[in-house]
């Protein structure tokens, strides 16, 4: 008896880098295609892949492309560690290993018919972009759509051109705030939670998706609750150490949940009891 490759969820599939785009000083986007030939990489908004750099290691990265598009697999990555630094030095023509997609998705189907509020911060806009694409493709299925985005400084605003395009649409409400104004920034200065207070949506019929640093998500949930959005209609995307992404390695445990397979997207009431407990 021997093991077959197809059955092994730990086995990466080689992908080639088609294009690379600098987004911010430490953030970049890679477009990938399977080396075995072109095929659609099916995923749901909010899911992630494990990206492997030869001889360096593997990290979880959420998918930032359009789930309804047949084009390449798109990842937006912030260089914050050994593997993401190594990915940053890679160029088109290079190859990486891909395992996935893994994890739970933003519930874009059950949000149909409701107002949708996306609260994002920092590089947390990247895992939310597939939701934005999906909602725009199916715009008539949703009520008001609100995109709230907080960044550290104007220089840290991710997907700035796209945000401006989205802001110019009449069927989206886009609001951006920075914690620290610099240079010629003429926009809002203040915390992202303040955008929640004033955004136009029906708190009793809205679904909120929150993605950003954990602290930012904590404050965002409070602000959403204050507006009247119930815990059962708030979803957030968690981050923990991951080695396997399939529930074997134990690293991503968050109380009784595995971030890799029960998450990364959780309905808030499922993790409420442990969300602000120290060092869970």
């Amino acid at each position, binding site marked *: *008896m*021997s*093991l*077959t*490759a197809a*059955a*092994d*969820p*730990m*086995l*990466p*599939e*080689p992908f*080639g880098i088609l294009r690379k785009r600098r987004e911010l000083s430490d953030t970049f986007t890679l477009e990938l295609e399977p*080396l075995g030939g072109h095929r659609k990489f099916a995923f749901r908004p909010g899911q992630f892949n494990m990206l492997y750099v*030869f*001889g*360096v*290691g*593997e990290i979880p990265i959420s998918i930032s492309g359009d789930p309804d598009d047949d084009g390449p697999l798109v990842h937006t990555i912030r260089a*914050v*560690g050994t593997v*993401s630094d190594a990915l940053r030095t890679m160029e088109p*023509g290079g*190859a*990486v*290993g891909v395992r996935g997609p893994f994890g739970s998705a933003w519930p874009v189907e059950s949000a149909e018919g409701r107002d949708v509020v996306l609260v994002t911060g920092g590089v947390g806009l990247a895992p939310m972009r597939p939701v934005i694409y999906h909602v725009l493709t199916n715009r008539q299925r949703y009520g008001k759509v609100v995109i709230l985005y907080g960044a550290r400084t104007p220089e840290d605003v991710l997907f700035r051109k796209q945000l401006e395009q989205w802001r110019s649409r009449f069927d989206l409400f886009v609001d951006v705030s920075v914690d620290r104004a610099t240079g010629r920034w003429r926009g809002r200065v203040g915390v992202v939670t303040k955008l929640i207070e004033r955004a136009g949506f029906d708190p009793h019929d809205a679904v909120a998706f929150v993605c950003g640093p954990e602290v930012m998500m904590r404050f965002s949930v409070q602000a959403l609750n204050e507006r009247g959005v119930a815990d059962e209609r708030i979803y957030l995307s968690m*981050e*923990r*150490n991951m*080695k*396997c992404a*399939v*529930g*074997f*390695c*134990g*690293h991503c*445990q968050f*109380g*009784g*949940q*595995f971030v890799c*397979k029960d998450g990364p997207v959780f309905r808030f009431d499922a993790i409420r*009891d*442990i969300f602000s*407990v*120290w*060092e*869970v």
Partner: protein
Amino acid sequence: MSERAVPTNIRMIDRDGLDALIRDLVGQGRRVIGPALRDGALVTGPVASVDDLPAGVIDHQEAGGYHLDTHGNGALFHNVVGPHTWKRYLYPPVRTLWSARRAAGGLEVMADDAPVPRYAFLGVRGCDLAALRVLDRVLRDDAFADPYYSASRDALFVVAVNCTRPGGTCFCASMGCGPRVGEGFDLALTELPCEDRHVFLVEAGSEAGTALLAGLPSEPADRAALAAAEARLAEAAESMGREMIPDVAQVLRDGLNSPHWATVAERCLGCANCTLVCPTCFCSTVEDVTDLSGAEARRERRWDSCFTLDFSYIHGGHIRRGGDARYRQWITHKLAHWHDQFGTSGCTGCGRCITWCPVGIDITEEAKAIKNREGRA
């Protein structure tokens, strides 16, 4: 009393019968693993005949303490579990998952296609059989299956042993896992060394077990032997060294902010012994190893422990920085969150973590302490 009152799937064998059993398993091409005496402890190792089994060895176990002794009756299984667990065979401490090499215009990934061994485990106790069921749930029967574990587990033959002499740190009775073995064995032995002759009751628990048993020199189990086995098992259940509080899962869920974690952390060395000897701890990490030329790389999976600082590292820092948070993670995972994740406790009451803790931290006592510090009745 008629012979028909005795269950037909239970037979009686002697030492020679056990020897024939081992040789049959070897003859099937299996790697038979059973108790072995090494470095002053009962561990596990290859077994080719009944003479390889340590006879007359008994163990004394307490919190942070373990020593062996001999007993004149020559019993093979009048001891309990040692520092080894069966997971080391089905989920090895280090295993190469795959290798990769740079290829023209890309990357080539090669699966590990080494044959999976066909094991027979001899001497699996109730706690450890329960642990196999727990690992099955985690590594084989969840959304994703670990192919190596699944293949070697499916090929496994289990000769279980009912414990008639519990150890000082055992608490399987309070976890519902022993001293009588639960389901999942092919054959289960109950050793009766002190009667007029040294015999084993053998119960078949599977077709493979029934078939094997049919080929052994055996005799029908007599009622006296059955009654003796029952009495010993009942006595063993009563004389367990320790006991887990029944409401431990809720106690721990409610106790996440207990001041007691800091108290445990004062003693805990963070050495990870408890996780390494635990029969159900499955956490692992991966390491990427490259050759000197940098042309080939391979990915190794190694056992990991939630007691290490790096275990919870995410970019920027470690989530569980303190020993308090790490001990809390281990015990709440094992006894509370495991239920949420897999519908069962992750603890089977084997007592290894108590025995092999260098400072004698006792999981049953810590559970009680959390309960009492929380002021719950």
